[in-house]
């Protein structure tokens, strides 16, 4: 079944880009295709002038693109620390794992306390932090987040956005798929609106926030 039709989007280096739109519109499919989890039938995906369409997922990570999927997928019986270490598995990131581990702990001090607990025993918010930390361990150049705030309490949602901004400051390019346009548009530079597998609108987030169509469809709670 074809989910995406003629989707064409580009992400600029060291920017934060969002894909917004109602669920089922193709946001996740787009991210997963880039990550190599879904095969691309027609069309191409390029990264830094290299074609990466249909690369197996582990090679995409080695290229420098990491995805945090919507369903999180922690390693449930591994400790928090082992989950993080696993994030640094690639040959590229492994030598610097200790330094990166410290970096993640400084970003999420709670994880340091929880480091020996099995990840499945952590609360939703803690798991989310762990997931983001784990993705950072792979030293990505591009970090993709699929619905990072789903199911989180408002306080944690803000925390996640703080973290995203922090990550951006470390020169990581970010692509976020988020159902709630209201939350995300304030943070990002560019946004694409996807519905039914197509991009219906795109532009700088400022413009979109002022666009009456967008306001009507997405920003009115």
């Amino acid at each position: 079944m074809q989910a995406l039709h003629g989707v064409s989007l580009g992400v600029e280096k060291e920017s934060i880009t969002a894909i917004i739109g109602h669920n089922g519109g193709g946001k996740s499919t787009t991210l997963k295709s880039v990550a190599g989890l879904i095969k691309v039938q027609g069309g191409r995906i390029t990264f830094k002038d290299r074609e990466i369409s249909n690369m197996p997922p582990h090679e995409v990570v080695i290229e420098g693109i990491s995805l945090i999927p919507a369903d999180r997928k922690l390693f449930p019986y591994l400790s928090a620390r082992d989950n993080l270490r696993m994030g640094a598995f690639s040959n590229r990131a492994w030598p610097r794992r200790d330094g990166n581990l410290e970096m993640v702990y400084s970003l999420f001090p709670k994880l340091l306390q929880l480091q020996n607990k099995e990840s499945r025993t952590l609360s939703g918010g803690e798991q989310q932090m762990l997931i983001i930390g784990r993705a950072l361990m792979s030293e990505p150049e591009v970090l993709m987040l699929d619905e990072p705030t789903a199911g989180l309490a408002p306080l944690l949602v803000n925390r996640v956005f703080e973290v995203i901004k922090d990550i951006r400051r470390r020169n990581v390019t970010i692509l976020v798929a988020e159902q709630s346009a209201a939350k995300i548009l304030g943070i990002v530079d560019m946004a694409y609106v996807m519905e039914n597998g197509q991009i219906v609108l795109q532009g700088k987030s400022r413009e979109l926030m002022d666009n009456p169509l967008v306001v009507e469809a997405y920003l009115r709670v």
Partner: protein
Amino acid sequence: MYAIMALGFSLIWGIVGVFNFAHGATYMLGAYISFTLITWGLNASLSISIMIVIMFILGVLIERFCIRPFSAYRGTSSYVMNCVIVTLALAIAIETAVLLIYGGEFKTVNPFAPGVVVLGDFRISNQMFYSFVIGILSIVAIALFIEYTRIGLAMRALAQEPIAASMMGLNPNAIYSITFGISSALAGLAGALLAPVYSIYPSVGWVSFLYAFIVVILGGLGSMTGVVAAGFLVGIIKSVGTIWLSGQWVMAIIFGSLILVLLVRPRGLFGTRVG
């Protein structure tokens, strides 16, 4: 000893998700290969070490040619069925080859360490003693490997969440190869160590395979400690049992306990993940 066999089998099941029916065959091969090497004049430790390396490579080859071609079906029940059939076929092929090369008669293998160890009232043959010690050391070594090395970490992660693991930059095929290699090496080791005790013949692998299977189910699919504990349990039951009862009774007891345990705890004694 059964613990070693079971561990290897359980590793493949837990990580690759496949029943390796050729596991018994690898046990048998290990025995034959080291027997051959010894017959050619190499001393015991060297033969066994070489055999382990050979078995490891064999395991990798098995993964590559018998399992990997089906990887497109991974995650479906037909995948497991396919691998069962393939490994079963492989086992039969290997057994037939050995039969042709070596003949089907029972061969007795001289113990590596003649003599007896006397511990108080008990006399154990040196052979048994060394086998036991080597067995324990191997298990400890593997446990440490899985817990503390990078590859061990990868194996644990892959067993728990295959998709997430590949998103960490992990090439699943590479890990599967290593897993098969380790499993084969372990089976071969068990085969070589027990060869002097039970004499070898081409079908010798199946008994061990059966035991490995029982131990894995008893201990719980997917739990390392459970498998090891169950391995020892079965070993003890068997040894103690054969002293007082006939062989048939021992088997009956073992199977009976298996049924009992499964009724009470369908996941096995220590099973944490659903098999």
